[in-house]
């Protein structure tokens, strides 16, 4: 790891000021990706701005059917929060399956979505639910947040403050995990609202995506046979040592059908 300056500001103003006083600063959230990538010298920022002392970025609350989760809330807190378990159990279940217990005690929701790893779990919940990302500069609608491979619409000095999820009627997250890394080979987030059905897929391509063609059909007829009947034309799936693209294509179909049948029984 190369040398860097380190700051642990107490509020957003101090954080932004510290960030902008160096050419090549990086935000440090839980560090579960950044620290390993710095060890490998794939990342060598001149300064790290550690967000862990900013209380404003932590915590979970519910108001008017909106579940708000602070960016620096760790996965273990989301998994164990009674507010999350009662209002959006699919999200608690997703958080409880990230990495391992030690990773869940450090990794954060804000860090995960800002990193936008193509096989991370949280991005599928952001797209698979009606959600908004509240940053230090603006509000970003979920649909405009993820830009592609490890890329988001955040400015370099922009910071996620919290994520607001509109609570659905029902939702489910299913993951076919790599047995070693626990990253998703395919992960499906399916949600039902009174006016919309959403299906988001992670792990399968270079970036999380929604299956719009299928959502429309499922909204009119929430039944697994719709999956067989719909031509949702997914292309450019990942083809790697873990699974080839045909295998992923098949998994997507099987897992969406399984998710539908589980939600039907609820």
């Amino acid at each position, binding site marked *: 790891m190369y*040398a*860097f*300056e380190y700051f*642990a500001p107490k509020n957003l103003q101090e954080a932004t000021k510290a960030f902008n006083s160096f050419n090549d600063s990086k935000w440090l959230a839980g*560090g*579960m990706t950044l620290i*390993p990538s710095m060890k490998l010298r794939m990342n060598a920022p001149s300064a790290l701005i550690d967000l862990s002392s900013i209380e404003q970025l932590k915590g979970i609350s519910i108001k008017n059917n909106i579940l708000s989760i602070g960016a620096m809330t760790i996965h*273990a807190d989301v998994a164990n929060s009674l507010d999350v378990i009662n209002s959006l159990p699919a999200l608690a279940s997703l958080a409880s399956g990230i990495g391992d217990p030690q990773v869940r*005690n450090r990794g954060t929701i804000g860090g995960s979505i800002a990193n936008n790893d193509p096989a991370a779990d949280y991005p599928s919940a952001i797209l698979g639910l009606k959600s908004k990302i509240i940053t230090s500069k603006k509000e970003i609608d979920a649909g405009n947040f993820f830009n592609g491979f490890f890329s988001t619409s955040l400015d370099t000095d922009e910071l996620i403050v919290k994520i607001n999820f509109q609570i659905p009627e029902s939702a489910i997250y299913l993951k076919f995990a790599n047995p070693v890394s626990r990253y998703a080979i395919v992960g499906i987030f399916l949600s039902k609202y009174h006016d919309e059905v959403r299906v988001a897929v992670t792990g399968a391509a270079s970036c999380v995506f929604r299956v719009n063609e299928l959502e429309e059909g499922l909204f009119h007829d929430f039944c697994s046979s719709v999956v067989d009947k719909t031509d949702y034309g997914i292309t450019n799936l990942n083809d790697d040592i873990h699974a080839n693209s045909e295998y992923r294509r098949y998994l997507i179909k099987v897992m969406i059908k399984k998710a539908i049948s589980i939600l039907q029984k609820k």
Partner: protein
Amino acid sequence: MRISLTINGNPVSEDVDNRTLLADFIRNTLGLTGTHVGCDTSQCGCCVVHLNGEAIKSCTMLAVAANNSEITTIEGLSNSEDLSAMQESFRRNHALQCGYCTPGVIMSAVDLLKNNPKPTEEEVRDALEGNLCRCTGYHNIIKAILDVSKAG
């Protein structure tokens, strides 16, 4: 940067390079070599310690980020010459062979029982997701943890 923290109940204050990992700080600066570094890539769990009461991988955290925290390492589990209940159960159940992964496994196991005092076997196996043992095949580790849970 100068950091101050409590380790196994003892306050320490030391100058560290910003890039020093917590695991290296514990081993090299504080001389507590019970915390091991196996893979150095957050996979194996040999370096697990408790940070403010929660199990974390100390090879994937900066020492400077542990400023003002409370850390417990394997050396802090027992204050006397006697083994702690978990250590004793590992000894009795032959839950280790080479012993390299053992400090991390025990720190994870203690964390599990703190949060879930009566886990099922499946929950114990899930809780050990982040710890690799290349000798035992895990069966005796699971037995040792369940024994402590039953006795507690």
